[in-house]
């Protein structure tokens, strides 16, 4: 299973965000997505996840269009998908149940959440919340992990823990695409996004096209 993206671009508010980019992600490899604030990393990840449309280019997973493969990927964004009223274990158990995964203990263990398992998510510190959000990765069977700034609010020990979870996923043939501003302590390929060249009329807002003078 290989993810191939060629010449993809995204738009926001009718504007092309970055110059067409391509990458190739083999099983067992991770790619780090870099670029200055506002270049479109989040938008790109959401587009790959199928939550937003791509503005151009093609993405295939083993030759098939990506959209056909629901459940083959998981996306962790800026938000942690935690219910403040539920405990850490309850939150995780719900996501596990959706993926038919019965045992959440390893996931809690991996992010050192075992002691916090019964604490309502509302009463976690920023870093603990993030860890609980990331634990969702460990109960999913998705091969492709799309992660948006996963290290936010994590201390060094937790970053190391995340790295070892990632390595375990990759060594099992998984793939990961990680947008981050911080260096990751695992070997990764890098994909840097660069600004789009000055918008050409066609690529930009439809209302800039010729017929609307």
């Amino acid at each position, binding site marked *: 299973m290989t993810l191939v993206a060629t010449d993809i671009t995204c738009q926001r508010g009718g504007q092309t965000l970055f110059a067409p980019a391509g990458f190739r992600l083999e099983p067992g490899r991770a790619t780090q997505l870099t670029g200055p604030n506002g270049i479109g990393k989040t938008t790109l990840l*959401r587009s790959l996840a199928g939550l937003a449309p791509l503005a151009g280019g093609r993405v295939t997973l083993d030759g098939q269009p990506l959209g056909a493969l629901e459940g083959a990927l998981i996306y962790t964004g800026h938000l942690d998908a935690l219910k403040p*009223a539920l405990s850490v274990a309850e939150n995780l158990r719900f996501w596990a149940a959706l993926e038919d995964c019965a045992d959440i203990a390893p996931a809690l263990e991996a992010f050192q959440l075992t002691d916090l398992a019964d604490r309502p998510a509302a009463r976690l510190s920023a870093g603990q919340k993030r860890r609980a959000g990331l634990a969702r990765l460990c109960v999913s069977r998705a091969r492709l992990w799309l992660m948006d700034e996963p290290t936010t609010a994590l201390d060094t020990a937790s970053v190391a823990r995340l790295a070892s979870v990632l390595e375990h996923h990759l060594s099992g043939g998984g793939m990961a695409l990680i947008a981050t501003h911080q260096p990751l302590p695992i070997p990764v390929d890098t994909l840097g996004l660069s600004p789009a060249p000055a918008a050409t009329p066609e690529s930009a807002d439809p209302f800039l096209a010729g017929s609307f003078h």
Partner: protein
Amino acid sequence: MRALLARELTLALRAGGGAPQGLVFFLIVVLLVPFGIGPAPDRLAGVAPGTLWIAALLSCLMTLDRLFQTDFEDGSLDALALSPLPMEAVVALKALAHWLTTGLPLTLIAPLLAVTLNLPASAYPWLVAGLLIGTPALSMIGTIGAALTLGLRRGGLLTGVLTLPLYIPTLIFGARSAIAAADGQDPVPALALSAALTLAIAAATPFATARILAIQLR
């Protein structure tokens, strides 16, 4: 599927959840009415079924506005959209959970409140039947409004504005049957129409709502 339903129910019943408040709100709106229009028994009896229906509708509405909102704000909706469960099922289950925690208890308590409003005894079964048939439609329709206003600040209020007109057919048929019974007319046709309406709505809305949610997540 079962996990989602269980989660919704837990969240609704847990401290700060919508379920008890929905009921209490219903109770309070009904209790306000005598203060607002005065305590004369005749006047109250005349407006009893209508009051109960309007109160039910408003308290459904108030509990609905955050149906998808919290999931949207904390990123759960993204994760649900990417989960193996189809979005239509998510919508239907959420509507079901909403009805179980709001529409159903409210239907069960309505006869008690009807006493305080002097509703004639003959109208009781029809009132309950009407609510039982009509409130699921309120929950289903509400998902449309909730989805449309997702992510808007003060979305809750706009939800009301968009959803209330959609509620009118359900309200008319539902209230009609209890009023007819109270006035000694035949309550069956209104009830039958109400049931047909609910079925049609329940069949169609999950698809519409799922479509709207996909747009919202872009």
